[in-house]
């Protein structure tokens, strides 16, 4: 069944992963190899990364498909994810290398689809490409810009 999802088809690459918080959405990818501290690094009103040391500095996570390894810092960061949703600047979906409890619980209360443990390298995805996240079967599909 799942083989048909692998590899390229019609210019789209598909990567199998694990569904953590169920849901589906599609948006522009924003990719970083650096962990994120939701409590301290993100402006909760605008969704802009305010930590000057982070490689996403000044980038906006609003309505993106955010791809990062995992969250770091206090588990209270889950409330920050909830606040982003309340300000309508949350990511549309999140892809983690390994979902941590802060991201998992934050996505759960904010209803943001979350997948993790991708079977191939998601950090190779270029920011700006359209990514479709299916957090029901556990699949991401990378399309054209």
């Amino acid at each position, binding site marked *: 069944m799942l083989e048909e999802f692998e590899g390229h088809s019609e210019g789209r690459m598909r990567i199998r992963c694990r569904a953590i918080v169920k849901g589906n959405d599609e948006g522009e990818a924003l990719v970083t190899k650096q962990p994120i501290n939701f409590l301290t690094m993100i402006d909760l009103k605008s969704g802009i990364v305010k930590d000057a040391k982070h490689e996403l500095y000044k980038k906006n996570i609003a309505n993106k498909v955010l791809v990062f390894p995992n969250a770091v810092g206090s*588990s209270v960061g*889950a*409330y920050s994810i909830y*606040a982003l949703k309340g300000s309508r600047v949350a990511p549309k979906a999140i892809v983690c290398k390994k979902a941590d409890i802060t991201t998992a619980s934050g996505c*759960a209360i904010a209803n943001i689809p*979350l997948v993790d443990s991708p079977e191939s390298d998601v950090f190779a995805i270029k920011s700006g490409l359209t990514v479709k996240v299916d957090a029901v079967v556990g699949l991401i599909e990378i399309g054209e810009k």
Partner: protein
Amino acid sequence: MQLTSDEEKALKGERGEALATAYRILLAIGEATEAKKLVPITWAHVSGVNYNTIGDSGVEFLEKLSKDGRVAVKTTINPMGFDAVKVNSLKLNKEFIAKQNRIVSAYERIGVTRSFTCIPYEVFDLPSKGTDVSFAESNAAVYANSVAGLRTNKESALSALASSLTGKAPYSELRVEELRKPNVGIRVNYELDNEVDYGLLGYFAGKVAKNSVAFSGVENLSKRNAKSLSAALGTSGSCGMFTHEKTSEMIEFGKEEARKIRDELHTSEKGDVITLGSPQLGVDDLSLLADMVQGKKFRKRCLIFCARAAYEGAKKLGYTEKIEKAGAEMLCDCCTCLTPLIDRNEVDDVITNSIKGAYYLSNSNKVGVCLKSLKDIVREECA
């Protein structure tokens, strides 16, 4: 993760929105930690009470949840931002007080016990060994697993709250016997003298261990040193438990390792204010302190954070009178971590014997920290 049909119904919202949210949280954490099912817990201890910790988004979330969310099991809560009785005499801004009161009201509607303590294991009777609980406060989770013989993961504010509403927790990590086995061991190769030394060891261990760590050379821990060790261990990483068994891989912890950790946390040679607590002091700690300061006076402002239950107990035994006579201010319901009572516009450096306190004073309150053992604090800062 497999849910029962009742759990599925609750997840779909058939038993209210709050319970559906609670199951969403447990399901997400269960999937992330590879749990196969939920297991019953008998006691939840919830963190995320201080307004300085959870902020406006926390206030909003809790108010929404408290509309129809109710506790299913005994639920105790962490310290808040101030002493509820002394609030009017403390220098706090009105907005902070109002937001803090909204948080407390929301928790009260949910039905928690107004414990405002980070040492539930010392204030409340413990269930029998092997019982599953859900403790969010990290020092309490480590102490529960390592000293009190209970089982809990190092829960987050949200997972413990979800456990409170459902009476359940994902069966994963430290709830699974095989996963409680330490994956790294630490051999302590010098004699630890006081609670600061035990804290330095804990902080070191938290950096190198994952779920569980084995110590050799620190058997026969006193409760005071176990509290300090647990709190520091819970601060520096994800490790939620220590044991005293042998492991194949042993890392050395000597004076050099201790010095490196101390250099990281001890950022000042002096301090304007002394804080004792983090974790809060219990009756035994207050008894010891009362003896040490009898007939002496603190030369500086000294804030002593204790559980209200401990304060009331110590008062009956005459300890609080001795401590207050020495000039210290005793504060209940709150603690050193993220306290609004230490403002860097007024305080440059703080003296404390708490490694956990040192970490938060430095990183959250942004003040300098002078680490000293209680014995040295009394010797050098009292006359």
